């Protein structure tokens, strides 16, 4: 066997290209394309009275100006509702260009196409849109009270109302020795990848074909959506995701209005057209997430074991629901984390507001759920004067109870059934890593120095690798080059490397001979997309299965030619050879020649193959009935359910007694994503997730005013953390293989960000001695909480009054 690639921290194949300026992102393509720019609504809620473009049409370089009325047929119809759900009784989607009414600041109203972006924006500035303003609905409370409506025909602003219950929660609560209720609030944040959205389309008039490139997380999805919108046969549309500068969820939505309009304009004008989103547009016309109000009522016994969990949540879905209600569904199921909840009920309302629409952002409802559950665990510990980790461990699902079925339906409509995980082992690791048991001593020392410190913890379980399927295709050329393709896309996860690692091991070839293509519908037309931490699980498994097919075929052909049995062969570094007699061998390139009866001697491999002429049988066709020419194979992986990864984080924070500044002194992560293909890449995913989590816990919030203006729609005002804000992240791993897929892997993409708000809240609460129920939290917020606590408006934690009295707060 060659050096094992699977499991090794291999350097990424994509990097030499990317560090030398060789990346090709959306706006790096199509230098000859016309540029599209948009007039977007300045109002959160208004009727469009008139659009006057008279001053814009004469701008030198303007090619076309389009409003909703100009959009023919399906192009002008509402955008699709991608994921319907029976409880989504009032799903609404927008139009590619607003028709009659706008429902959030940033909604596209007019498209201008011009020779370049500067000119297109000049023209946009000369277009006057007259609006009749309508009262806006901003914030969850305003949506919930239903006095004002976002959509006239949606009573109470309720898009969806869903209830899942396991057991009799009311009875269990009534019988519980202790009950507590927590009111929790998480604000909006957003993915904000460094590259915004973008789409570029070329229409080939001679062939009647459309080729488009989109900075997307699903090129097959965009392709199908655009074909349907433009009434083109699928066979006449191709979509390619070039290098994508980050996604984190927002680029899974398809089609974005621009993804419909740009190809439409390219066909109409017979010229290539491109749209590149700018930063402000990304803030006001892409998508946000996270905003939820949550009421959690728990019943528990004297030992801190949960007997009943009753959750009500109000989810802000923004102006439209193109992506359905995936986010609150995930919150309501993944909230359970590693615990047995006793009787469980979750009821949610998904509400319209006149703000940017909401679609999954890395974590996708889990950070909010984890926040709810972990705040509840801390509250139980505080109530009963128990160690916070002890309460958690008493409620854990144990390894002996796996697989564990919660009796609920998960986001994929399949049972929420954990496949594996060792939560006690994870807890032991995180306690050791952060020094849980030594913290009291550390705190005493810090307090003696006048410093205020706190320790926090958060645990989560993440369903990853949801179906329905992904495919892998592998073809070995006569040169020995191995081409691998899978349809899902890449936004920095290192797929070129990890999938090559899998293939190198499965086939027995050198890593450098493996070339992976993702997100190109010409290479693999059947694919779902990159989201829900599914790429490694789904495409990794599919590619492994495809590689096994190719290997079997290679061995069969080689065995024939070498006149041995396939069982006696092995493949090492791209050479098929007889075990124990390596001189009897042929390269995979030669096998590839032999696999195709059409053999012009173009290259050395073909010439080399002539020595293995084989026996000629005039009664048999050159390609057997059940065979195909070529050394290639394709397979799909389709699991019965998601596989569940888990992790536990702990942090030590320091809060300044005077300024209320919050500093993370240590941040520790224990992570179990099953077998790791490349630990270096997994660790990178965890780092990135934690950084986004820190942003969500301490810095990032979408500041809407009451009129629905987003006040911080720039990187100047919306505080994405710099290196100075992200702590050093200490990590440890556990590998509990998944029994569900051929490689034992679980997803890793989202994990890092899930528990961060819960952990930081837990630590700040521990430092301050009063409950933290609202995230993110700024020094200003903390200062205000201290003031209210001092005024007696916020109760102290029990443990703060139980221990020696602390110095009074500011």
């Amino acid at each position, binding site marked *: 066997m060659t050096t094992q690639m699977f499991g090794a921290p291999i350097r990424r194949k994509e990097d*030499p290209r990317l*560090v030398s300026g060789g*990346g090709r992102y959306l706006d790096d393509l199509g230098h000859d394309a016309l540029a599209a720019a948009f007039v977007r609504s300045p109002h959160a809620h208004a009727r469009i009275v008139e659009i006057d473009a008279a001053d814009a049409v004469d701008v030198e370089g303007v090619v076309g100006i389009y409003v909703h009325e100009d959009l023919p047929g399906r192009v002008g119809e509402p955008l699709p509702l991608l994921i319907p759900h029976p409880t989504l009784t009032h799903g609404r989607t927008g139009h590619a260009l607003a028709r009659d009414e706008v429902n959030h600041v940033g909604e596209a109203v007019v498209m201008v196409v011009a020779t370049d972006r500067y000119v297109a924006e000049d023209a946009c500035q000369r277009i006057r849109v007259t609006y009749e303003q309508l009262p806006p609905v901003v914030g969850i409370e305003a949506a919930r009270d239903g006095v004002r409506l976002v959509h006239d025909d949606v009573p109470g602003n309720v898009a969806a109302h869903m209830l899942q219950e396991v057991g009799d929660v009311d009875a269990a609560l009534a019988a519980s020795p202790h009950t507590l209720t927590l009111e929790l609030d998480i604000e909006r944040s957003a993915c904000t990848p460094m590259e915004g959205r973008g789409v570029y389309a070329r229409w080939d008039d001679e062939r009647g074909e459309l080729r488009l490139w989109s900075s997307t997380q699903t090129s097959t999805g965009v392709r199908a959506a655009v074909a349907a919108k433009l009434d083109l046969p699928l066979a006449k549309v191709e979509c390619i995701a070039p290098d994508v500068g980050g996604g984190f969820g927002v680029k899974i939505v398809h089609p974005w209005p621009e993804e419909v309009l740009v190809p439409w304009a390219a066909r109409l004008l017979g010229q290539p057209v491109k749209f590149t989103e700018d930063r402000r547009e990304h803030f006001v016309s892409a998508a946000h997430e996270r905003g939820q109000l949550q009421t959690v009522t728990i019943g528990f016994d004297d030992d801190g074991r949960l007997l009943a969990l009753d959750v009500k949540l109000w989810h802000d879905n923004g102006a439209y629901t193109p992506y359905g209600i995936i986010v609150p569904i995930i919150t309501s199921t993944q909230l359970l984390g590693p615990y047995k909840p006793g009787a469980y009920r979750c009821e949610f309302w998904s509400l319209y507001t006149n703000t940017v629409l909401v679609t999954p952002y890395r974590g996708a409802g889990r950070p909010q759920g984890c926040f709810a559950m972990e705040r509840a665990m801390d509250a139980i510990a505080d109530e009963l004067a128990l160690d916070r980790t002890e309460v958690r461990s008493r409620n854990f699902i144990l390894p002996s109870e796996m697989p564990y079925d919660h009796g609920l339906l998960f986001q994929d409509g399949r049972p929420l059934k954990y496949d594996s995980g060792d939560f006690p082992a994870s807890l032991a690791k995180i306690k050791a890593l952060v020094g849980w048991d030594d913290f009291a001593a550390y705190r005493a020392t810090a307090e003696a120095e006048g410093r205020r410190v706190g320790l926090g913890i958060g645990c989560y379980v993440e369903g990853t690798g949801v179906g329905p399927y992904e495919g892998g295709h592998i073809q070995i050329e006569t040169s020995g080059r191995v081409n691998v393709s899978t349809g899902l896309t890449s936004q920095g996860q290192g797929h070129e490397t990890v999938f090559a690692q899998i293939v190198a091991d499965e086939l027995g070839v050198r890593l450098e001979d493996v070339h992976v293509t993702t997100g190109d519908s010409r290479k693999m037309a059947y694919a779902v997309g990159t989201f829900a931490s599914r790429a490694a699980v789904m495409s990794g498994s599919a590619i492994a299965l495809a590689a096994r097919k190719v290997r079997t075929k290679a061995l069969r052909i080689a065995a024939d030619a070498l006149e041995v049995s396939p069982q006696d062969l092995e493949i090492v570094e791209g050479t098929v050879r007889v075990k124990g007699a390596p001189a009897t061998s042929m390269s995979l390139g030669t096998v590839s020649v032999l696999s195709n009866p059409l053999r012009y001697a173009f290259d050395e491999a073909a010439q080399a193959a002539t020595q293995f002429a084989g026996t000629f049988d005039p009664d048999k066709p050159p390609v057997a009935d059940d065979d195909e020419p070529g050394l290639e194979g394709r397979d799909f992986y389709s699991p019965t359910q998601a596989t569940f990864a888990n992790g536990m984080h702990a942090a030590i924070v320091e809060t300044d007694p005077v300024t209320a500044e919050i500093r993370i002194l240590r941040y520790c992560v224990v992570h179990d994503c099953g077998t790791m293909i490349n630990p270096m890449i997994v660790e990178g995913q*965890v780092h*990135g997730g934690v950084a986004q989590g820190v942003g969500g816990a301490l810095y990032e919030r979408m500041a809407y005013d009451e009129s629905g203006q987003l006040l911080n729609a720039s990187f100047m005002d919306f505080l994405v953390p710099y290196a100075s804000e992200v702590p050093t992240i200490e990590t440890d791993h556990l590998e509990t293989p998944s029994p569900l897929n051929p490689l034992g892997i679980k997803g890793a993409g989202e994990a890092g960000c899930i528990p961060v708000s819960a952990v930081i809240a837990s630590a700040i609460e521990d430092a301050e001695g009063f409950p933290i129920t609202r995230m993110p939290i700024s020094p200003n917020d903390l200062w205000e909480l201290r003031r209210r606590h001092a005024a007696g408006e916020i109760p102290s934690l029990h443990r703060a009054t139980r221990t020696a009295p602390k110095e009074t707060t500011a």
Partner: protein
Amino acid sequence: MTDVETLHDVTVTVNGVRRTAAVPARRLLSDFLRHDLRLTGTHVGCEHGVCGACTVLVDGAPMRSCLMFAVSAQQHEITTVEGLGSSTDARVAPTGESLSPVQQAFAECHGLQCGFCTPGFLTTVTAYLEENPTPTNEEAREAISGNLCRCTGYQNIVKSVLRAAEITAERRGEAAASGGGEPA
């Protein structure tokens, strides 16, 4: 109704090559490099000077090319990410690219994921290490604290800075040992 914009001839030296183009006065340097000269390695993440993705070296100093007009770069020397591999301490990677110590370090330390922010970090760090060849961990973190990355959480970028300092020292040592000759 509107006039054709007046164009100005701009001549700059980019990555050692003199380039001339006629551009409107308002053309950003970032757009000039990317769309007029088709050096698309320089990226635009915000267009308001905050993210640092567009950082290029102007006469050796890091500048945000989205905050500069192309016409104000007249007669200056600009280095973009595409030019970093031409430095004397660059070495050819097995995959064929010529990589400077900073580029090499980012590839070794997994200092990038999607790679969109990376050119801005590479140029920033290149200029920083010229002035500060032996940074501490804290200094390395400080040095990159003006650039945004949404993917990596910065841990491995800090490592990359430290590793780049090492590689630079190694390669300069080699060069000195071999009589200061230019590597191929």
